[in-house]
């Protein structure tokens, strides 16, 4: 291994905390959500009134969901007002054709093995930014809105029912909304695999210690080894 020639502080503490809380919440939400859709465990013995088998899974799902939402909102705040060079929305302009220009194309070509050299970014590369936008921003937003709409269903005249209930007719009914919520949940394990693979690959190819950077916050530039 070559000598470390530069140490860059990329992921500040709020970003790292967000990342890990988000990761844990997503896993917990996926597991509890799948359980709610298909409860597997054997029924408890005795009177129903004494047990909370299913209620517990739902309770955890809802409780974690609120942590997930708070964490998501915090990340939105941080992206807009955090003044954090590597965590803000600033550079992400998918509505502008120039954003899709050279950097995006080069990164895409690199992923498709159409070029030899690997473009190097300290923060997110354009393709990664797009993936985060689609899966994390859009995916989470949809899950949060549909989740709150369904959470409000036991009191349609209440706060959640008023604020988010419009999701239900929009998707053609409560059942369809449940179904789409369930279907969309699968984008998270899908994204998880792509994310882990991309991180490991970049770490191996670029040797920027991107894997540990989400724990320590630091990325490294490593000296080219002499032959």
């Amino acid at each position: 291994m070559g000598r470390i020639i530069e140490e860059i502080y990329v992921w500040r503490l709020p970003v790292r905390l967000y990342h890990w809380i988000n990761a844990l919440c997503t896993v917990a939400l996926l597991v509890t959500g799948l359980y709610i859709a298909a409860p597997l465990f054997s029924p408890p013995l005795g009177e129903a009134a004494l047990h909370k088998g299913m209620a517990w899974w739902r309770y955890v799902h809802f409780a974690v969901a609120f942590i997930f939402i708070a964490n998501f909102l915090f990340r939105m705040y941080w992206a807009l007002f955090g003044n954090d060079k590597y965590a803000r929305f600033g550079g992400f302009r998918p509505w502008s054709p120039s954003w899709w220009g050279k950097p995006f194309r080069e990164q895409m070509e690199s992923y498709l093995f159409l070029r030899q050299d690997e473009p190097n970014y300290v923060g997110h590369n354009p393709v990664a930014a797009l993936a985060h936008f689609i899966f994390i921003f859009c995916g989470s937003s949809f899950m949060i809105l549909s989740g709150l709409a369904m959470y409000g269903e036991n009191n349609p005249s209440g706060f959640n029912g008023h604020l988010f209930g419009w999701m239900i007719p929009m998707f053609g009914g409560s059942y369809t909304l449940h179904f789409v919520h369930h279907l969309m949940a699968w984008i998270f394990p899908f994204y998880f695999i792509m994310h882990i693979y991309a991180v490991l690959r970049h770490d191996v190819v670029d040797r920027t210690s991107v894997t540990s950077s989400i724990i320590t916050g630091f990325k490294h530039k490593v000296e080219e080894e002499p032959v």
Partner: protein
Amino acid sequence: MQSNQTFADVFKARGVSRRDFLKFCSLTSVYLGLSPSMVPSIVEAMDKKPRTPVIWIHGLECTCCSESFIRSSHPTIENLLFNMISLDYDDVLSAAAGHQLEDVRKKIMKEYKGKYILAVEGNASTKDDGVYCMVGGDSFLNILKETAADAAAVVAWGACASFGCVQNAEPNPTGAAPIHEIIKDKPIINVPGCPPISEVMTGVITHFHTFGTLPELDRFGRPKAFYNTRIHDKCYRRAFFDAGMFVRSFDDEATRKGWCLYKMGCKGPTTYNSCSKIQWNGGTSFPIGSGHPCIGCSEPNFWDRGPFYKRLAEVPFLGSDSNADKIGMVAVGAAAAGAAAHAAVTAAKKVKPGSENNDKA
């Protein structure tokens, strides 16, 4: 029967005592979810207001709404019910037929212009000028438009009129369309269900008669008084759901014990209706009470929402063996396979440039 009779007159003529009349008014206020202080308003309306004429027409339907309606148990005498809502035209229940009956409809439309309620059971075929549903020599589509033009309000009875039901399920060969897609300029109350509960049907009409306004409606145009909560939230088997005690097949011990039918595909958690509160046939039972999962008949397009006995809907365009989990797992598997392939290519590519410029050991 004079058309300006009040409900009280009708009751009296039929030999119903004042006491029973007041009982009926109290029960109606309970079903409408009104406070006891509103009972006098109902009594007054029933006493003094002339009965609201109702024209009840039938399109593409199975008459199960009418069957339900004539079994309304509060009040208990079906005969009362007919008189109560002043049902002036109903091509299924009327003794008269043919031109005589059609003349009655025309007469009511003229005499009570803008005041009568149009109750529609079933929906209209819209394909090929509505030729797939003909009533009295005209298409039901035309009759519906013609009769709705002068109505004060339109009540869409049942899943057919409200959302389309089985006749507009895929592939909908006759182009059947629910009432709100055909009549745009009238207030419409959707009273879905296949059929709706009889007390809900009488309750809706009584509300209109009492207050002269439509009941408060939810986002799907259903009266909130009856469709504001899910079957699941008032289900007497809810304790078994929360405890995780489920029926797993229709012949197991759990079925005998009456556990939750969630895993048998019960649509109670996503269905808004009053079955678990009012129940059916005078509070005798309701589907879940009889051991059958709810099929969600008061929800839009419930025929197309997957099998009745499975929890997760099938995905229509991907064949009958796909559900959300299978699609998800295939997608995740594809991502994993893609990542593995990409890693392999990365490794293979590295070998070539690696051989000429470095040999990291």
